[in-house]
């Protein structure tokens, strides 16, 4: 049997751990429950003051949860290095802080660019007339764009030709790699949130 404020405390920790798998959450809560119970001296009825002091020493529940999530996402992203795991981790972070949101937007943009480069390289052999890097011939209106399916306007010429395939592939791979490196760097910094000493 546990005191109502201990239950409320653990409920708050659980609420902060939503993004982790359930077995892990149960494991974490069991460990914290054991800690609290033993600090209170086993089965005896503890008074409110004692409970409060134990909980205060343990820290704010939402901060503990945030720290668990941060540690967990950081090493998980690092151990898989998959863009999906990284995006998930960064997305969760983005719900917690402005900095996280900025990092998430950067990563999303980076991966989107990477995928577009790959797509352009992939589409070139199938639609050679409409996929390419086009540049305007008129000297007064210099425009550069990667073509879609509509094809080039009359006064444009293609710049890269078949070179688009290797260049698109290497730019795509490079962008994805760079984005991953950036996200891992950011997540590693996240691992040490400033609010907790």
């Amino acid at each position: 049997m546990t005191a109502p404020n201990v239950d409320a405390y653990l409920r708050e920790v659980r609420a902060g751990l939503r993004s982790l798998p359930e077995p892990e959450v149960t494991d974490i809560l069991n460990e914290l429950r054991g800690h609290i119970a033993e600090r209170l001296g086993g089965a005896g009825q503890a008074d409110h003051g004692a409970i409060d002091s134990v909980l205060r020493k343990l820290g704010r529940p939402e901060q503990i949860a945030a720290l668990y999530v941060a540690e967990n996402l950081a090493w998980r992203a690092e151990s898989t290095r998959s863009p999906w795991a990284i995006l998930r981790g960064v997305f969760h972070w983005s719900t917690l802080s402005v900095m996280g949101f900025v990092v998430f937007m950067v990563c999303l943009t980076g991966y989107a660019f990477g995928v577009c480069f790959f797509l352009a390289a992939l589409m070139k052999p199938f639609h050679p007339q409409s996929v390419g890097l086009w540049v305007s011939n008129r000297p007064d209106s210099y425009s550069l764009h990667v073509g879609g399916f509509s094809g080039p306007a009359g006064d444009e010429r293609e710049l890269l030709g078949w070179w688009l395939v290797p260049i698109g592939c290497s730019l795509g791979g490079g962008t994805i790699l760079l984005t991953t490196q950036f996200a891992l760097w950011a997540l590693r910094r996240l691992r040490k949130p400033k609010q907790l000493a």
Partner: protein
Amino acid sequence: MTIDGSGSSSDKWEVQLRKGCLELAILASLWSGRLYGLELLRVLEEKSELVITEGTVYPLLSRLRGEGLLDAEWVEAELGHPRKYYRLTASGRRRATAMAKIWFRFSANLDGLLTPLIKEER
């Protein structure tokens, strides 16, 4: 920003220092055998001044386990709650040794630099 003894800069520096050392202190505490969370906290309390908020240690243990530096297992206690025991893995032992070497090198160098500061203050 203040840079005197009681200022926020030195507080911040101390917080960073604590955090940086906590991981090494945890690995070192587990050097001679397995411990469960609260036991580990008691060792840290007694032998270091590193832990202020106890709840920070548990997430850190969880990451160290995720990185393969620690193993964990639940053991039924005779009385009360089951306990989650942590022990160093082979790679945890290697990491702890490597960190300890770095620590001693750093602190030996710094000691030489810092001793005059304390002497002059007296």
